[in-house]
Every structure is written in structure tokens, then in C-alpha cells.
């Protein structure tokens, strides 16, 4: 056959047949799809879409559901009150409640606390760890490089997981930026040492230590650990309790400790602090070195 186009004989009948076949086939299939879409249509609840719109869309899982849409479904079905979303502000929650005509539900704002103050300079290390820079991986190598078996490993598994960027690693210690944290609990779930606790957001003073060991043992490995001296408990038994060498803030007490309490107690190691102080302490050490 001649390659030049001009001399190729075109069978117009064949072209017309092909076009007709394709068009007809397309039309037929489109018709089938259209009919099926009509007959088997799943009627969605428009309220779910509405609530999903009103939710922040962070998909943090702080409500205990798989994501915002899943939470919206549970709100519409009445399983959860809209107030259970930890990210939404009071106004946003009220808007959802208004749209659905339900109760707002109790809102207890939460936040995360890293119960460890052993940073690069105050806590001791036992080994040079040069493996994968993840806490969960470091735990596989002899339980991690830190001498304290309960403290923060500071490789940022929690910071990588936080959907709000509320965790910063300063000198091998995770610190929380309170204003960003909404207490969804993803960091607490991922921490291999279980250092992170979820507490009521109203509390500003915490004990930044998690080790149940004896005070003398802790002192050998960390200079900012709670020694379990009981100074805080003696000063204010309403607000603190002592369990197994570790002071704890009574978060369910009527009155929570504040800055004044810290001043009055005078914790010998500084384990009793506010989140802000905790963050600044980690930074201050860096400035000294």
C-alpha cells in the first residue's frame, strides 16, 4: 500500500460504521449507568455532610472516632454530643448543636503533658545511640540510650504524630505548646515510654517526672526528677498526692495548683512546674552550655 496519504483510498462506509458503533455503544452504556444510578441510589443523610462541614476537619481522632466524618455520623445518630470534639471552639460546637437541635454536651477541654523534664543536660545517657531516629526504634536497642527507664527519649515520635504541631523537641525533650494543644491524645498513644498524659486543660501546674523509682536512684541518673520528698504534699495535701516515690497533682481536686503554689512549695529539683516553665527550662540549659 502507498504510504502517502493523498493516494490512500478511504472507505467512508467503514468509517461511518465505526463512528456509529462507538456512539451507539456509548449511548447505550450511558443509559444503563443512568438507570442504575437512579434505581440504586443510596440516600445519604444531608445532616452528616452539614456537620462535617461545621467540624474543623483536623481528623485528629481526639473524640475517639476515626475522623471528622465518622464523628459527624455519631453526632447525627445521637451517639456523641457535639461537645466531644476537642478541637472546635464553643461557638463552633453551638453552631452544630443549633443545626441539629441537640444539646451541646459537656465540654471538658484536655491537653497533653510530657511528664519528664530530663533534657540533654539534666539527665544522663548510658550509650551512644546512632540508629534510626525514632523513639520506638531506639526502644528496641537495649531500651533506649537514656539511663532513666521511664523518661522521654526525645526523638520526636509524638511531634511527628501531632496534627497541630503543638510538640517541639528542645534538647532531646518533648515540650508542649499549650496554646496549640487540644488534647486529642495521639501523642500519648504513640509514646513508647508512656510519658505523655492527657489532663484537664484547666491545670497549669504539673509534676514533670514519670519514674516510680526511689528518689536516690532517680537522683543518680537525672537532676530534674521528682525525688518524692513530699514537700508539696506536706504543704498542700489537698492538691498533691505521693505514690511510690512520685508526687502527683490531684487533677480531680476542687482547686488546682497555680504559680503561687509552686512558689510556696519550692520544689528542690524543679520537677513541679508549669508547662511554660518546663519549656523554658529546656531552652535555658541550652543557653548555659
Amino acid at each position: 500500500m502507498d504510504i502517502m496519504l493523498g493516494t490512500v483510498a478511504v472507505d467512508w462506509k467503514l468509517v461511518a460504521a465505526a463512528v456509529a458503533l462507538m456512539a451507539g455503544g456509548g449511548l447505550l452504556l450511558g443509559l444503563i449507568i443512568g438507570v442504575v444510578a437512579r434505581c440504586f441510589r443510596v440516600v445519604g443523610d444531608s445532616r452528616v455532610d452539614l456537620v462535617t462541614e461545621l467540624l474543623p476537619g483536623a481528623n485528629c481522632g481526639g473524640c475517639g472516632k476515626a475522623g471528622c466524618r465518622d464523628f459527624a455520623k455519631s453526632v447525627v445518630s445521637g451517639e456523641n454530643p457535639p461537645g466531644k470534639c476537642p478541637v472546635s471552639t464553643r461557638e463552633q460546637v453551638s453552631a452544630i448543636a443549633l443545626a441539629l437541635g441537640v444539646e451541646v454536651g459537656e465540654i471538658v477541654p484536655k491537653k497533653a503533658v510530657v511528664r519528664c523534664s530530663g533534657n540533654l543536660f539534666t539527665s544522663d545517657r548510658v550509650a551512644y545511640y546512632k540508629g534510626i531516629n525514632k523513639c520506638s526504634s531506639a526502644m528496641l536497642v537495649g531500651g533506649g540510650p537514656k539511663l532513666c527507664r521511664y523518661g522521654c527519649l526525645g526523638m520526636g515520635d509524638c511531634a511527628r504524630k501531632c496534627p497541630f504541631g503543638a510538640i517541639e523537641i528542645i534538647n532531646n525533650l518533648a515540650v508542649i505548646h499549650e496554646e496549640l494543644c487540644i488534647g486529642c491524645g495521639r501523642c500519648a498513644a504513640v509514646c513508647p515510654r508512656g510519658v505523655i498524659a492527657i489532663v484537664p486543660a484547666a491545670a497549669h501546674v504539673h509534676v514533670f517526672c514519670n519514674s516510680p523509682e526511689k528518689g536516690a536512684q532517680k537522683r543518680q541518673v537525672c537532676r530534674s526528677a521528682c525525688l518524692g520528698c513530699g514537700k508539696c504534699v506536706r504543704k498542700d495535701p489537698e492538691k498533691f498526692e505521693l505514690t511510690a516515690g512520685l508526687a502527683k497533682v490531684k487533677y480531680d481536686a476542687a482547686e488546682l495548683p497555680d504559680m503561687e503554689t509552686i512558689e510556696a512549695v519550692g520544689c528542690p529539683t524543679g520537677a513541679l512546674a508549669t508547662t511554660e516553665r518546663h519549656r523554658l527550662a529546656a531552652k535555658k540549659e541550652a543557653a548555659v552550655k
Partner: protein
Amino acid sequence: MNKSSRDVMTFKGGIHPADSGKVLSENRPTLTAPLLERYQVLLCENVGKPPKPVVNVGDQVGKYQLIAAADGFVSANLHAPTSGKVVKIGEVPGPMGIPAPAIEIEADGEDRAAELFPPLNWETADPKELVKRIADCGLVGMGGASFPSHVKLSPPPDKKVDTLILNGAECEPFLTADHRLMLERPRDVITGARIMARILNVANINIGIEINKRDAVESLETLAEGTNVKIIPLKVRYPQGSEKHLIQAIAGREVPSGGLPADAGCVVQNVATAAACTDAVMKGLPLVERIVTVTGEIVCRPGNWKLRIGTPLLEALRLAGGVTEEPGKILFGGPMMGFAQRSLGVPIAKNTSGILLLTREEALRHRATSCIRCGRCVQGCPMHLSSCLLATAIENGRWDLAQQNHVMDCIECGSCAYVCPAHRPLVQLMRSAKMELRKRKK
């Protein structure tokens, strides 16, 4: 067939570590360590449930006396390494980095033996009695995993076991403890093999030895003549001593994914376990000592020592004359699969085959770079896994992909990380995935 030209068996995959370092200690006869003042016998040394202490602080114990009894079927007895007083039952630095419970015994210097079990005639004794003796004497797999031996020797009745394999491969570089044992106690190894074969009621006994231990192969071969014990020379290749690969090389069978050697009709035991089995049955001696290789370029007198269980790492190093320079890393086991230690107080256990000291240069870890997809890890993997693809999946948290690609079959031999030109921490990635998947299964 000519001995030098005969075929040596092996498996597919694996690596050839360049300098095996065995020359440091393989020609030094085993020495017996002097009695120490204190021994710390770890309770959690065997796979399975840790045994329960049956002595109290302040009790006088004799050598070989039972100090902790097996708690359940998959658990092993512990015996006192010397006579003396129990001074502490508490935590000591453990071989896995975390403190582990142990019984501390202060030696009285007399080394007086408690009452031993009566010797048995293995050729006439009831196999059940033999298994009971092995359980009584606290035998565990001495190759590394320390799985209680009596459990391995009682396979479930639905699994038909027809082959017993003794593991004398010792494929880890630097270690020579099994090599010395085979040279010094060949008769006990063969007797131990025959005792185990009698228990399992199998006629097919194989002892697999890598051909870099030619003297051991020859001495065992002379003794095995006229018996049903076969000595199988194996190619020098890591990880030849892995249970699954030994079965592949010797019996030509493959252990199914997630299965046990019994699924392939085999039982594998270490040669040191076989020798300990002979002691237990014929002399009634519980397992309280083992041969440990103390080696490394920087060790003054590398060699093999018969150490009692519970000897602290520091004392073992003293026997070897100390070090010439500060070590970069101290490992329990060989360089491929050994565990780095963080304290000199860690006591040796029944499964500690070696103490290896690496120099700072040897312990140096290169910076990991991106995968260049050269596929060397895939070639080297004895389990035929695609290590590089698995690593990428794990790094991205795709546990489902890792599971689909059989990360659970990884034996953590370290071949992939050894050959990786990008120095990627492949074994650690596999381990973290295995840990994560096990956690999710619960």
C-alpha cells in the same frame, strides 16, 4: 569420593563476611575459669516463662542445687553454679539493656556439690525418663535462642519428626566456642546426639559443620564411624547456622512460613546442648557452665573459657587479660546478631556463646543514605524477602504492606544491612515492624 573435592551443602542467599576473625581464638584450648566470689544467675534467660525462685535470701545452697523451678511447660530449671549463700534476689543489669531479675549467690569457696541425679543408661532407659532428666537439668538451646530443650524434644504427636540435626555450623564470625567444644569433647557430642535421637525415635542423625572447621569434621567423623550419625560438611556462608537454613541445606526441606522445624519433620539442637545432654543423662549434672568465646582485636588474650552461668561480663574480660584500648562496643554473641551491652555487670547466661569487643573503628556507624535499589539486600536475604521494599514501606508506616510482604519471616540475621552500600539500618527497621505488628495482633 575424594574428601577435598566432595560437594558441600548449603542454602540459597546469605553472605560471606570478609574476615571471620575466628583465627583469634580458634586454636586456644578451653580454659576453666577460677571460682569467683559472686555469681548472678539471671532468671529470665530462657524463652518462655521465667522460672520461679525456690530459695530465699540467706539460704545455703550447694553446687548444682535447684534454685529456680520451671514455671509451666515452656520454662527451664535453674541451678546454683557453686556452693554458697543466696545474698539477693533482685534486679541486675540484664543482657537486653533493661534490668532483669536474678538470684545472687556469694560463693563460700568450697564448691561443694549438692546431691546429683543418678546416672542413667541411655541405651536402656525409657525415653520419657530421658526427657524428664533433660528438663530436670535445665537444658536450653545453647546456640542463642535458649529455647527449653525438653520442649523441642517433645514435638506434638501430629508432627512426624524423622530427622535430628545437630548445629555445629557456628557461622557467626569471631565465635569459636562450639568449634572448641567439638574438638575437645567429640565423644560427648556424638553420645548426646544419639540420646536425643533415642528420645525422638529417629534413625537419621546429622551433624552439620561448616568446612572452615575441618579438624572438627575429621575428629567427629572418625568417632561417628559405625554409628548412625552422619557428619555433614557445610559451605562457609552466613547464616548457615540458622535453624531453617540448616534444615534446607541438610534435609533439603523448607520450614513453612510461620512454622516450626517440626513442620518439616526436623528437630535442630546445638552441639553444646548435645554435650550438656550427655552430662545430664550419664553423669546427672545440671547445666551450670558453658564455653564462652571472649574475643576481639583489642582483647589481650582472646580465647575460650569454661565459665559458670552468672559470671559477670567484667570478670570474663579480666580472664582475657583486659583490653589494649577502649572498646567501641561490647557485644554478647557474634558481630552479626549479637546484642550491645551497656553495663559491665551483665552476667552471662546459658545462651551466651561469646563476648565480642569491637574497636571504635569497627563499631563506627556510617550515615544512612537513600536506597539506590541495587538489590544486594534481596540477593543476600536467606529468607528471600525484598528487604529494600520492606524498608521503604516500614519507613512510611505502611505496616499492612510490610505484613503482605512477609516481614514476619525475617530472621534478623543482618545479611541485608551488612551488604547495603547505603548503610541503611535495615534490621532495625524490620525489628520495629515485627514489634509493631505483634503489638497490633494482640
